[in-house]
């Protein structure tokens, strides 16, 4: 199933947040969206997930929803969004409970996704007992349990420390190699984008427009830290973003003044 964005434009009151976004996300690819803070990345993702409607333009799906997908467009949130009163397994089963599944089927799915994300030993733990990295693993397990066609990830690693981030990036790469999931991955971290993105969409500062799309044709599994080609891409992205980021930074300061 592919995802098509056509001419997405949106205003909050007088401020134009997004302007004329056209984008296609094809099955099996990870598209990273980067841009200075406040440029509308999260807003764009909310449109894609159907949580909000843009003023202009449309988000379209093409092709069949894969059989067995319970929630084709599935979020992974920056702040995990786990229910603190539910254990790990109950947090996963929460999103299955509204579907016509028997208790046994549910249990099988929960056990399966916890196994795949290395959480089987933490089934009964409460979120407060887990580290940030483990919480995000639970959130990823929860997302996987509904067999999404496209995962919408809004800065999923931004709340984590850098070592944990590295570990989770490895996990995501391994997961992609096994399952070839489709994802829209919003981040402001260039290293993440270069590591995980098949294509990297660079947004300008507000109002967000697509400045460029950078394609990286190296296989995810073959990308390693210190790879000169990836470093070159990252430098190039930084060149593009630097002025935008600086301007965006100043813009927010002006707003406050």
């Amino acid at each position, binding site marked *: 199933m592919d995802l098509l964005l056509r001419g997405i434009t949106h205003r909050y009151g007088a401020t134009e947040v997004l302007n004329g976004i056209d984008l296609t996300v094809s099955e099996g690819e990870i598209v990273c969206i980067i841009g200075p803070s406040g440029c509308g990345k999260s807003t764009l993702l909310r449109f894609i997930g159907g949580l909000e409607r843009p003023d202009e333009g449309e988000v379209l799906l093409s092709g069949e929803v894969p059989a067995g997908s319970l929630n084709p467009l599935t979020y992974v949130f920056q702040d995990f*969004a786990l229910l603190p*009163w539910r254990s790990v397994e109950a947090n996963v089963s929460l999103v299955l*409970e509204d579907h016509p599944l028997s208790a046994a089927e549910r249990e099988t799915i929960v056990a399966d996704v916890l196994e795949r994300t290395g959480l089987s030993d933490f089934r009964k733990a409460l979120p407060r007992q887990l580290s940030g990295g483990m919480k995000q693993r639970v959130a990823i397990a929860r997302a996987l349990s509904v067999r999404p066609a496209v995962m919408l990830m809004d800065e999923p690693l931004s709340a984590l420390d850098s070592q944990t981030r590295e570990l989770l990036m490895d996990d995501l790469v391994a997961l992609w190699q096994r399952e070839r999931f489709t994802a829209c991955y919003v981040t402001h971290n260039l290293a993440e984008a270069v590591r995980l993105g098949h294509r990297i969409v660079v947004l300008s500062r507000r109002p967000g427009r697509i400045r460029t799309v950078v394609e990286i044709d190296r296989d995810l599994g073959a990308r390693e830290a210190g790879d000169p080609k990836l470093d070159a891409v990252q430098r190039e992205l930084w060149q593009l973003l630097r002025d935008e980021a600086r301007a965006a930074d100043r813009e927010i300061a002006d707003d406050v003044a």
Partner: protein
Amino acid sequence: MTSLEQSSLDQTSGGRAAGEQREGLRPVPYRGGGFRPVPIRLIGPFVFLAIVALWEAGSRSGVISNLVLPAPSEAFEAFSYLVESGQLWRHLSASLQRLVIGWTLGTALGITVGLAIGLFSLARAGLLPLVSALFPIPKIALLPLFVIWFGIGEGSKVATILFGTFFPTVIATYGGVDNVDRTLVRMGQSFGLSWRSIVRKIILPGAMPAILSGCRISASIGIILLVAAEMIGAEYGVGAYILMAGSLFATDQLLAGVAILSMLGLIVSWLIGRLERWLLAWRG
């Protein structure tokens, strides 16, 4: 490896050097601590017993006149008489029945209305001003009206407690709903949970801490209103007993009755504490 050893050697020699000139050194002044009361067992009962003992001593020595304040032992005697004559259970059961029915209905209605105000714009616009206007009215002032509306029997008494507990519960509940983390609600929506599931599994548990502290307040208000509710036409009940003792200036009985209410308050508060520990175990 050698450089590591080197550096550790350096450290020990540095430590020795510091040890040699110890005279000129002072510890950093400690400025932390405080602002965090820790529970100390037995202090509460001790303070209570000390006051009662002082009071008793004052009464016996004549410092506290019997006319002003009866001795605790006299109040206790009045209480013992209540127990022995079997009157205590009569009064207590009558009061408890009113309290339980009034509080349960008031809380259930309060949670329902509070949820509605928290969830629906129309309910909020329509009911919130009403609640804000009616909450501060002392329910005792409405007692004559309640007697006309609900009869002089149990109806008016239950209604007084019901109305008294209803409003604080509404306010606690809708405040709790407002404070539920919106990202959790958005998460529920993004996974396609039904409206009912979001309310039952996300909003209600998220508002539970606020609802339970509302229960604490409304239970105390219920006990306070017991005396008011039993002002008119009550034969039995702790409140009626206190009022009767008051009108006869039987201050020892009055104190015994007040002590019963106070104990009732402690028990209810303990029960709600248990409920909190059970329902909010996830907070750790």
